């Protein structure tokens, strides 16, 4: 099989680490009065407290999900690659469905952006893992 670019297997743990790490960062930030810039009119200056808070929460989570989604499996073969492509297709369908629905029914464009940052990746990961789980379950059933 031709090699495709994916992150190494161990990167998935790094990815989950980032996703989990964003939770306490978010809680501590909010406890200290930080507000997500998406909840506020954007300020022009970079690397202010709120901008850093945004990087530490939303972007860390998005980066973590991205790494989890695109890490290699232990045994990467053509079937896994097909499942991956199929899950990506479904993730794009769902993403555009959510995007179109939210453009029609919601005025709040800043949150549509935030939604778009996560929906395709989260849906992709859930669908991909679910198919892999089902494949390995049918394998263990047959023994």
């Amino acid at each position, binding site marked *: 099989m031709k090699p495709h670019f994916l992150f190494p297997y161990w990167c998935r743990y790094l990815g989950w680490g980032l996703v989990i790490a964003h939770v306490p960062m978010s809680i501590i930030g909010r406890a200290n009065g930080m507000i997500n810039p998406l909840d506020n009119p954007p300020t022009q200056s970079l690397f202010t407290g709120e901008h850093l808070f945004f990087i530490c929460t939303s972007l860390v989570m998005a980066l973590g999900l991205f790494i989890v989604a695109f890490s290699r499996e232990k*045994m990467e*073969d053509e*079937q896994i690659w097909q499942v991956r492509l199929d899950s990506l297709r479904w993730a794009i369908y769902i993403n555009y469905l959510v995007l179109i629905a939210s453009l029609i029914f919601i005025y709040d464009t800043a949150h549509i952006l935030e939604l778009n940052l996560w929906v395709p990746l989260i849906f992709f990961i859930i669908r991909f893992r679910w198919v892999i789980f089902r494949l390995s379950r049918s394998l263990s059933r*047959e023994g």
Partner: protein
Amino acid sequence: MKNNIRVERAIKNITQGELAEQVGVSRQTINTIESNKYVPSTVLALKIARVFGKPLEEIFMLEEGD
């Protein structure tokens, strides 16, 4: 597309895991091919046929509607 990998494996007396190792895929993939849930690429089909030392058409056959 159907196949008789299971029969050929029995004749050659190798397990799904051994066949998977010889063609460089996971056991899961061999299992789904055997149960007709997954159609392998031409390259993988040729590799499987080579393990059994038979022409491709003796291992994989087209079905009605293919």
